[in-house]
């Protein structure tokens, strides 16, 4: 589904990704781990198409499309979803309005009619119930005054509504209490299917207790330095990132 081949990416002139390759097939869940500053968010933003990042070499292919040719909104409509590490607040814009606009943009791209208000509300309330969110969040400004955990749940709500083919969740588990973590895990598991893929960027084994990954990768200094199955995450938890760094350099 997603093939990243030897990409190099810079921001503000400094190279952050330095020859990173990753292959994600439909039906798989990948976990990406690694120390702070190793380039995890950069990878997520590059796939989503943030214009601050410049890809200087390599290729990113998604379902046989050259992803780097597409605008961010086109990538989104093709089914790529990014759960942001720091979801931005958009005061004054109703959460429901944003959700509905996003849903309709995608439906339009697929040649479908706009969803009517009644259907939309029904769907949104259903998903919110699954995530343990109060429906009143629909009428608040997007992320406006939300707590950290509420913002993350809101990301998962958007994902659940948009039903992406490829979801990249950037530290969606950070700073969550156990209930919120379970809710997020539930949202992710509900999305799992043979024709979808999920990439979880995380620091902790915690989330992986609820969402079992097929592959685990360790990122360090802009490269994947180690890949393995779910036991790699446990090993990391045990030995820390220094162990990976030494292994990589040695």
């Amino acid at each position, binding site marked *: 589904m997603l093939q990243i081949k030897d990409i190099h990416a810079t921001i503000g002139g400094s190279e952050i990704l330095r020859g990173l390759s990753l292959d994600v097939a439909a039906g798989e869940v990948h976990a990406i781990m690694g120390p702070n500053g190793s380039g995890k968010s950069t990878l997520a933003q590059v796939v989503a198409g943030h214009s601050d990042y410049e890809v200087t070499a390599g290729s990113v292919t998604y379902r046989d499309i050259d992803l780097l040719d597409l605008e*961010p909104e086109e990538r989104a409509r093709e089914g790529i979803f990014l759960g942001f590490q720091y979801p931005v607040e958009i005061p004054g814009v109703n959460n429901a309005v944003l959700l509905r606009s996003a849903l309709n943009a995608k439906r339009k791209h697929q040649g479908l009619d706009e969803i009517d208000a009644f259907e939309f509300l029904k769907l949104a309330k259903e998903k919110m119930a699954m995530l343990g969110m109060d429906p009143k969040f629909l009428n608040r400004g997007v992320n406006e005054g939300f707590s950290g955990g509420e913002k993350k749940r809101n990301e998962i709500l958007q994902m659940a509504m948009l039903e992406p083919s490829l979801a990249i969740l950037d530290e969606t588990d950070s700073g969550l209490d156990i209930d919120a973590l379970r809710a997020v895990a539930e949202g992710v598991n509900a999305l799992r299917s043979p024709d979808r893929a999920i990439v979880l960027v995380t620091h902790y084994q915690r989330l992986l207790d609820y969402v079992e990954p097929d592959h685990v990768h360790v990122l360090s200094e802009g490269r994947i330095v180690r890949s393995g199955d779910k036991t790699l995450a446990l090993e990391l938890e045990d030995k820390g990132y220094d162990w990976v760094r030494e292994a990589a350099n040695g």
Partner: protein
Amino acid sequence: MATEQENLEQLVNRRYEHGFVTDIATESLPPGLDEGVIRAISARKNEPEFMLEWRLRAYRQWLDMKEPEWAHVHYPPIDFQDISYFAAPKSDEDRPKSLDEVDPKLLETYDKLGIPLHERARLAGVAVDAVFDSVSVATTFKEKLSEAGVIFCSFSEAVREHPELVRKYLGSVVPQRDNFYAALNSAVFSDGSFVYVPKGVRCPMELSTYFRINAANTGQFERTLIVADEGSYVSYLEGCTAPMRDENQLHAAVVELVALGDAEIKYSTVQNWYPGDEEGKGGIYNFVTKRGDCRGANSKISWTQVETGSAITWKYPSCILRGDNSVGEFYSVAVTNNYQQADTGTKMIHIGKNTSSTIVSKGISAGRAQQAYRGLVRVMPQAQGARNHTQCDSLLIGKECGAHTFPYMEIKNPGAKVEHEATTSKISANQLFYCRQRGISEEDAVNLIVNGFCKEVFKELPMEFAVEAQALLSVSLEGAVG
């Protein structure tokens, strides 16, 4: 110079002798301003003597007044002798015969604004009889109003048909020497609207300039007077969302509202004068005096405006809260893009007891535009229990634009409650990226954010007007980002 002057006077007098009504209605006066020109304007409009006297008084006062300089705007000096003060309506021969002859860019904008097909022709200045006959619409409309006793007509018609009302109220809210442009307008005003709602009558429909029969050419010095007699209600919609082009660069209108006891006037404006091109060339200078007088107890005047046009805007719709318990409201969205400059705001003058006012001002600047909000809240010593709440928000799109806020408070009654809140925010690159990552185009994302920012004001507009206003904003901000 002297001979030219004489010639003009001769010309004017001769025309007067020959009966001007049909004959000279199609001609414009040459540029320049003096008493002869004012006499000519008045004569061409067949005005009664009192109107001419009134104009002349205003003119003499204007002569020793100075243009205001304190507005936060910059423009080259205006040569008032270089303006023609009576422009006759364009003859049908000069107008496009059909929409096929109209600038396709203009039509494209109409399309984006969702303006109905039959309206487009009229707005584009197509000779009306060549397209559709608006008379039937206007007639049913007029019948309904006259059944209710509401007078709604052009200002010229009011001067002729209802001189007693005009005499009583004209200049009673905006005196002739109120300011430089008001004085000029009083001397040379071309036309405009007149509304009178009798005691206890709730006007059965929204009054809109759309439906005004004589709307075709109100000219650059428009004059509007609305009087709501005791216990009456009227909602008036000014302007339209279509871009208005005009060869006259200077526009100086005066609007006066009078609300007697228990009466309410709601005045909504959606204004879209041509702002000039992307380099700022050729736009309209819009210097307007709008004021409402809550003359009776428990009266209410509410101004709502959405403005996107003009190269330069200078205007302060205001309320004089004279009657006890009277209420003044001002809701405004002003958009400035490219090189536009706007200096707007409001004045709330509390005189009566327990008067209250609300100000909600939303300013959006993009490109290199500069916008200033200037609000005055004055509470007079006798205004026991006066209250004001002001909310003044600015939204910046891009790095080169600016917003400036100048709140003035003159509180002479210690018991008054006056609150002022102000915020400035920016549409950030991260907000736009967030929306785009959800599949929403950049343009739609800007619209979402702008509409969210303005919703408190939009909800004050009559429904269809609100929809048009939203479309208008999105057209005005097209290309503002990126």
